[in-house]
């Protein structure tokens, strides 16, 4: 078995329909998850992977129902543990293409530790984190990404926790691919899914997702047409960080080591910040930008190469076998100090 070769088998020509399971989808009407599901199903044929080689692993929460709706292999596991389960699966089966579907509570609260380690190990997985800034399945408590002071059932006078930024967290953990997309931007979502799925190593996508029941329009800053025009910053490799309406373009530039927003026409071209996915330090600065003082970056913040955990492990195994032959328990049992009694 060659390490990490999901594309080994020729995949048939699929359509979106091939990836739709026979299960009734049980999310609330109007949930952002529907759009994500459609986008994932639509991008699957582009992976070039036979569908029997695709596995979706999830934890617990609304997002984690996802595997039931994909006509692939799937495992709906326990709260927060999907990254750890997926790690074991990849180590056992490096020939499979494995997705992890999680949410802000599942992936960053109860499963925060596993998320940290799966990213630093760079396990070859595509991780989709649906961020709706609320606990939906348990009916509306604040989540680790909820804004400070959030009023919910469990925080009637406002939450006292400062939120975690998923992109900054992922980059801090040493993630090798970090991107952000939005449930209401189907085309961009598909583009990001394709990029992430082809990354070698742990690919982390934050998908800004709407919970229309418990936290409606939490991301209105990039839903509302006018606001989106003002704040959306599309990250494209080799292009300057420009955003805003065509008649009033703004630029994010560096003022020393501090990002700063300026009118684009007021700075020379040489002062523009050119986006470079290989520059993880720059990505860390981008991760912290958000409205209203800054634009909201959308796209791939960072994509770099690093050793993949299970590939290294399996190379060690292959080397041990090629150096000394496969293990033989009969030889092992009689190795070292033994003595005969007759």
């Amino acid at each position, binding site marked *: 078995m060659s390490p990490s070769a999901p594309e080994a088998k020729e995949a048939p020509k699929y359509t979106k329909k091939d990836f739709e399971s026979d299960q009734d989808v049980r999310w609330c009407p109007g949930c952002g998850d529907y759009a994500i599901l459609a986008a994932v199903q639509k991008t699957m044929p582009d992976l070039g992977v036979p569908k029997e080689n695709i596995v979706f692993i999830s934890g617990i929460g609304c997002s984690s129902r996802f595997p039931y709706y994909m006509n692939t292999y799937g*495992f709906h*596991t326990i709260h927060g543990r999907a990254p750890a389960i997926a790690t*074991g699966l*990849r*180590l*056992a089966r490096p020939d499979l293409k494995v997705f992890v579907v999680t949410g802000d509570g599942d992936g960053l609260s109860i499963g925060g530790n596993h998320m940290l380690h799966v990213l630093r190990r760079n396990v070859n997985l595509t991780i989709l984190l649906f961020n709706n800034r609320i606990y939906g399945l348990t009916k509306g408590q604040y989540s680790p990404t909820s804004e400070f002071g959030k009023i919910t059932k469990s925080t009637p006078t406002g939450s006292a926790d400062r939120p975690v930024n998923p992109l900054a967290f992922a980059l801090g953990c040493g993630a090798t691919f970090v991107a952000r997309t939005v449930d209401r931007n189907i085309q961009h979502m598909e583009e990001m899914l394709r990029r992430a799925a082809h990354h070698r190593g742990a690919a982390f996508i934050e998908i800004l997702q709407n919970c229309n029941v418990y936290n409606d329009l939490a991301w209105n800053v990039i839903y509302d047409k006018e606001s989106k025009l003002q704040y959306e910053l599309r990250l494209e490799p080799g292009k300057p960080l420009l955003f805003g309406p065509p008649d009033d373009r703004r630029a994010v530039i560096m003022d020393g080591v501090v990002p700063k927003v300026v009118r684009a026409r007021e700075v020379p071209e040489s002062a523009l910040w050119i986006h470079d996915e290989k520059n993880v330090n720059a990505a860390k600065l981008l991760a912290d930008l958000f409205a209203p003082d800054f634009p909201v970056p959308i796209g791939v913040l960072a994509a770099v190469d690093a050793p993949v955990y299970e590939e290294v492990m399996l190379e060690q195994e292959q080397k041990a076998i090629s150096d000394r032959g496969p293990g033989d328990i*009969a030889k092992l049992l009689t190795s*070292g100090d033994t003595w005969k009694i*007759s």
Partner: protein
Amino acid sequence: MSETATPATGNRKSLKELDRAVIRFAGDSGDGMQLTGEQFTTESAWAGNDLATLPNFPAEIRAPAGTLFGVSSFQLQFGSHRVYTPGDRLDCLVAMNPAALKVHLRDLKTGGLLIVNTQAFEKRNLDRAGYATNPLDDPALAERYRLHKVDMTGLTLEAVKDLPLDTKEKDRTKNFFALGLVSWIYTRPLEPTLEWMKKKFTKNPSIAEANTRVLKAGHAYGETAEIFGEHYAVEAAEMPPGLYRAMTGNRALAWGLLAAAQRSKVPLVYGAYPITPASEILHELALHKRFRVRTIQAEDEIAAVSAAIGAAFGGAIGVTGSSGPGIALKGEAIGLAVTAELPLVIFDIQRGGPSTGLPTKTEQADLMQALYGRNSESPVVVLAPATPGDCFYVAYEAVRIAAKYMVPVMVLSDGFLANGSEPWLIPEPETLPPIEVQFRTSSEGFFPYLRDPATLARPWVRPGTPGLEHRIGGIEKQDVTGNISYDPENHDHMVRTRAEKVRRVAQEIPPTTINGPATGDLLVVGWGGTYGAITAAVERAQTEGKSVASVHLRHLNPLPPDLGHILREYRRVLVPEINSGQLVRVLRAEYLVDAVGFNRVRGLPLASEEISEAVNQLVGSPA
């Protein structure tokens, strides 16, 4: 201990024959007592004795020198007959410092051999051990024991004075003086230790030379010093013929997995988080990549079991190992394996608790946790090895059952089995039962929870198999189809089905071996690492003509199908355990039998003497 004095020829000191002896080396944790004990064990194995060992060390890596809690010891019993335990009371105690004397003297038999390193009995060490005066000056000590005051430090330094080592390095070899001396006293061959030194210190010839000289100096001291009037021989034991090796429980568990991986031709993934006393299993498995055994040192206990479950979903053998506190953390994930009906093997190397408890000490108090320590109805198969070597077979059997029944299997070892060693008759691997892993490949009539009529196992499907794409999970599902189901009757059916599947593992259990008469006054029922102590006590009672038998359970869930019948064949039932009465509770509940417990929870193995007392009390008492 029976002694027959036989004058030795060619030696000016008399050689007495013993049929068994119990020795303990005790000193500071930096004194190398574990190594000394292990080498003495190897020498005794060479001499053909049966033996059992009990290493006992502090949890602290470098406990402050000279303190009571920093004392480390290694005990072994060796004999010319079957040796079941490391022994209760000591025939010989080697105390390298005052703290070691203080902690261990109470276990030495009256008239026993007491060897002390006099130079360590100075003011600072005496203070640290809480001695107001030097106990060696108390005439009562020499009256009660055969006390030998030896300046081991001084003699050691003298033996190596011309070697290019600093004083600390020289001083550190003094444990080999003790080993040499005790090896002379019990006529152990020095060859295995000399060979070991040569191999171990190839890169440091001065250390090798120092150790060799000191070992020989200790041996010569016994031979020439006027103080030792006699020494002892223990004849080779009559053991089944074959090739033997020393085996510890943790290594045996690891090797059992290797054997299972090779036999099943399926890769094995072992997820673990470092924890005493289970870590050696991870270390051992990590050495054997050639067996396609993949080890993950996970970020925590939950990740460790989760990785094993993920591997099992992928069609590998998923195994996780820990001790009680880690098993508690894994509980929810084990429940997932129960409902997802995936094969999973869980090793619990029990230690003293609750909470952190006594990390390096043994206990048997996780039986209830294994049986019931998860939310809701969550049955798993539970096995327990009886001896260090038995761990090999139990690990193998756990994989076989897990794969055949698509069920989690918990193996309850303990700190005593994990670190203890015994001479182990090496098996022929081909005599082990086959592990037939059948992955479903046919999509015709496939459903994820379609069951095998004999085992109730659902099909194991490797992702990557075309046409069998399916989803499973922790939510209750409809039997056969595996679709999510909240139907009340279906849930009741699934609860019963998961329990019945575990019950059917009883088909795998061979008839129970009864050690003693098939009917009688008393049956002693044990499980796990107390096997040796119980067997020794029961055989003693049998020699005394008492109507006593014993049964040792390797299968704790399900219990052997013939056990209920066996229990009724005896007037009384005694259940010795290192907990406050867990198996006894199960037996009473399961069989309505008036079994009584014998329970000590000290972090130590049960002594066969104390079990003997409990046996004697019950044999003489009315039912």
